[in-house]
């Protein structure tokens, strides 16, 4: 029976039906739900959140070498973190099939850059499949395991936001079995040091040739001949856009395998059509390959290296057709994402604003503090960089160390912040690191992590003791504050900034959206006392707005955190109605 499934859920079903035994991932939009859906099959698949993508991939590698089918998923930038194991895994190959999902985010709906992960397939010489809808997410996930074992290679499954987060119909087929393959000791294959790796490199080049032959003949690279004036080469979601835009007005070569590319298939298709377009988001990966084949193709010159494609864009560029639409003529303010009502990060950043410090920032919900009205982040590059970059800054600007802090979420600290802290202790700067411990990985939608005391399925486990950890690496000063108490938080940070030693400040209060967090009744404004001075608006809470001359609190949003009360000099914000 066909069912509606999110692309990511379909991948998870594919894992189940391929007999995958282990899934280890680190969350990252738009890849996160694959692992969350996989937990539904926890009887058959062991699922876990790893502290970061490198650990996740290495866990999967261990399981694969031991003979199990294994999987890990990450967002595009996650593969940067796991790139080290990936490149050498390509040399060792696998035992049980190993599939690696990587989800790109053209248009940057929730990402810090727009990198194109297909380059990894070529750079690491690893086969890459790209589905274009949920059915293919399911089918290709299963196929990827077969190919992994057939060619003795990890297989990359490339997803994108619109495929991962679109829902369409899926029909599941027979279940695979989860039997372990034999493990045989084989240092020539599994111990990569120069002598062995040299031999393996030869194997890898031969493997590429074999995969190419497969790609030429595989039924996931398909030709559909219609009108021959326009020929389209496309993969993934772009294929769906092209089909919608052009229908029978074009012929198609749909690529299910984007690496290795089928040279002969492409060349034959090119011969059959008058004008050939390669439609691909981000980089001209397929287009440049076609050009090396000497083909006359059109692509990036008329389209774009930036952002997403769409059926409208394709219609406009290729057919010159544009759709009419109406506009309201109103001036419409933007609606950027905001820290939620009751978010503990708001308290911490309000204290930092009052202290007027330089903030070396990181990635998580708290990055939203860089937007008005808080505007309290100076830099943000990649996960973990806040701590190491503050250390670097403090070396070259030691006089400003007393006015500088690093901020990092609990999950991000575990992901890659820890080593930065070790470095501060080891190479001694007076750096002040604030961990925003909200007991969850917030930004990606509430995943457990090593500090929360729970595993992926909610089962209790050991929690990292951040204080003991700091002491163990050589940071003597550790202070814990409650960000809901803004004056106390400010005082504690001010005191640490004066001290000539590195400190770890833990700002601890669970995310207001967590189910187990009990809320107070909503606060309200005493309109007799409110003079409309707008002081309470400075905190930037989405539940507080002005209505005429007075402020009002939206009872549907307010969670009664009370952080706003410290801003009102007139005692106009009261508990309850």
């Amino acid at each position, binding site marked *: 029976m066909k069912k509606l499934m999110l692309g990511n859920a379909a991948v998870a079903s594919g894992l189940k039906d391929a007999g995958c035994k282990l899934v280890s991932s680190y969350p990252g939009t738009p890849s996160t739900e694959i692992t969350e859906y996989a937990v539904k099959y926890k009887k058959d698949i062991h699922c876990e959140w790893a502290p970061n993508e490198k650990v996740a991939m290495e866990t999967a590698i261990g399981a694969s070498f031991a003979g199990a089918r294994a999987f890990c998923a990450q967002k595009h930038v996650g593969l940067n973190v796991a790139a080290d194991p990936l490149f050498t895994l390509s040399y060792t190959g696998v035992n049980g099939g190993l599939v690696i999902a990587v989800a790109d985010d053209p248009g940057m709906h929730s990402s810090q850059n727009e990198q194109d992960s297909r380059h990894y397939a070529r750079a690491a010489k690893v086969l890459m499949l790209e589905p274009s809808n949920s059915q293919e997410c399911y089918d290709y996930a299963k196929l990827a395991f077969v190919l992994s074992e057939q060619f003795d290679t990890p297989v990359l499954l490339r997803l994108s936001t619109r495929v991962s987060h679109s829902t369409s*119909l899926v029909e599941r087929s027979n279940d695979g079995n989860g039997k372990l393959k034999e493990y045989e000791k084989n240092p020539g294959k599994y111990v990569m040091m120069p002598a062995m790796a040299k031999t393996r490199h030869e194997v890898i080049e031969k493997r590429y040739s074999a995969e190419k032959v497969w790609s030429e003949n595989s039924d996931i690279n398909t030709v559909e001949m219609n009108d021959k004036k326009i020929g389209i080469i496309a993969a993934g979601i772009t294929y769906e856009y092209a089909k919608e835009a052009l229908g029978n007005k074009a012929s198609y070569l749909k690529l299910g395998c984007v690496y290795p590319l089928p040279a002969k298939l492409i060349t034959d298709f090119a011969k059959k059509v008058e004008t050939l377009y390669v439609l691909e988001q981000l980089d001209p990966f397929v287009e440049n390959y076609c050009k090396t084949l000497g083909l006359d193709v059109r692509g990036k010159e008329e389209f774009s290296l930036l952002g997403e494609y769409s059926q409208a864009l394709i219609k406009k560029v290729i057919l010159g057709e544009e759709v009419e639409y109406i506009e309201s003529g109103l001036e419409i303010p933007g609606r950027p994402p*905001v820290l939620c009502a009751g978010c503990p990060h708001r308290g911490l950043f309000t204290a930092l604003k009052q202290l007027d410090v330089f903030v070396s920032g990181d990635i998580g919900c708290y990055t939203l503090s860089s937007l008005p009205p808080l505007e309290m982040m100076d830099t943000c590059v990649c996960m973990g960089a806040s701590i190491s970059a503050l250390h670097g800054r403090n070396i070259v600007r030691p006089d400003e160390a007393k006015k500088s802090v690093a901020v990092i979420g609990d999950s991000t600290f575990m992901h890659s912040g820890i080593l930065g802290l070790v470095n501060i202790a080891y190479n001694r700067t007076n750096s002040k690191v604030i961990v925003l411990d909200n007991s969850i990985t917030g930004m990606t939608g509430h995943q457990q992590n090593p500090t929360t005391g729970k595993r992926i399925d909610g089962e209790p486990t050991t929690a990292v003791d951040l204080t003991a950890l700091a002491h163990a690496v050589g940071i003597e000063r550790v202070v814990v504050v409650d960000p809901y108490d803004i004056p106390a938080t400010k005082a504690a940070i001010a005191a640490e900034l004066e001290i000539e030693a590195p400190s770890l400040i833990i700002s601890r209060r669970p995310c207001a959206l967590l189910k187990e967090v009990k809320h107070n009744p909503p606060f309200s404004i005493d309109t007799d006392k409110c003079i409309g001075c707008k002081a309470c608006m400075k905190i930037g809470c989405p539940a507080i707005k002005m209505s005429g001359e007075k402020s009002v609190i939206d009872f549907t949003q307010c969670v009664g955190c009370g952080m706003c009360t410290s801003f009102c000099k007139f005692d106009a914000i009261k508990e309850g109605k």
Partner: protein
Amino acid sequence: MTKAIMIVGVGGQGTLLASRLLGNVLLFEGYDVKISEVHGMSQRGGSVVTCVKFGKKVASPIIEKGEADIILAFEQLEAARWLPYLKKGGKIIVNTQCIDPMPVITGAAKYPENVIETIKKLGVDVTPVDALKLALEAGNAKAVNVALIGVMAKQTDIKYKVWTKIIKDTVPEKFKELNLKAFELGYNLK
């Protein structure tokens, strides 16, 4: 012909459940269905949009400017923001609730006045609904989404019973009664 319904609102208003319900109803009616949503960062108080497309065979899951047959707006400003996505002759159902975005809260921008009248004057078929009132009447402000689905359901040819069956199948047990009530209030709105 592929039909397109766009659900727009503010992160946290329950647009995802609305699209899921709608998707399951359309699937039950025998259509090919594709839904596109964006998760993650934009959930937190940001502008959110979900596309539901159905027909004999759907290719692209997204809706572009001038393509939506119906826009179901959970908030007035969002109705105005996404208006260009409406097809000529399309319909808008809009919740009369206003939620100030941060630039308005901080005073950097103004919430536009007379949004619904302005859209009506352009000749667009607009149905304004006080869905928060309906939801509170049903028992909880969170049921705004299903109340709005109720209003839209009335404007389709799909039978009442199909909607309520799918609501029963999709919604967790403890919210069933609330959502059925909210749906009914929306459906029977004059």
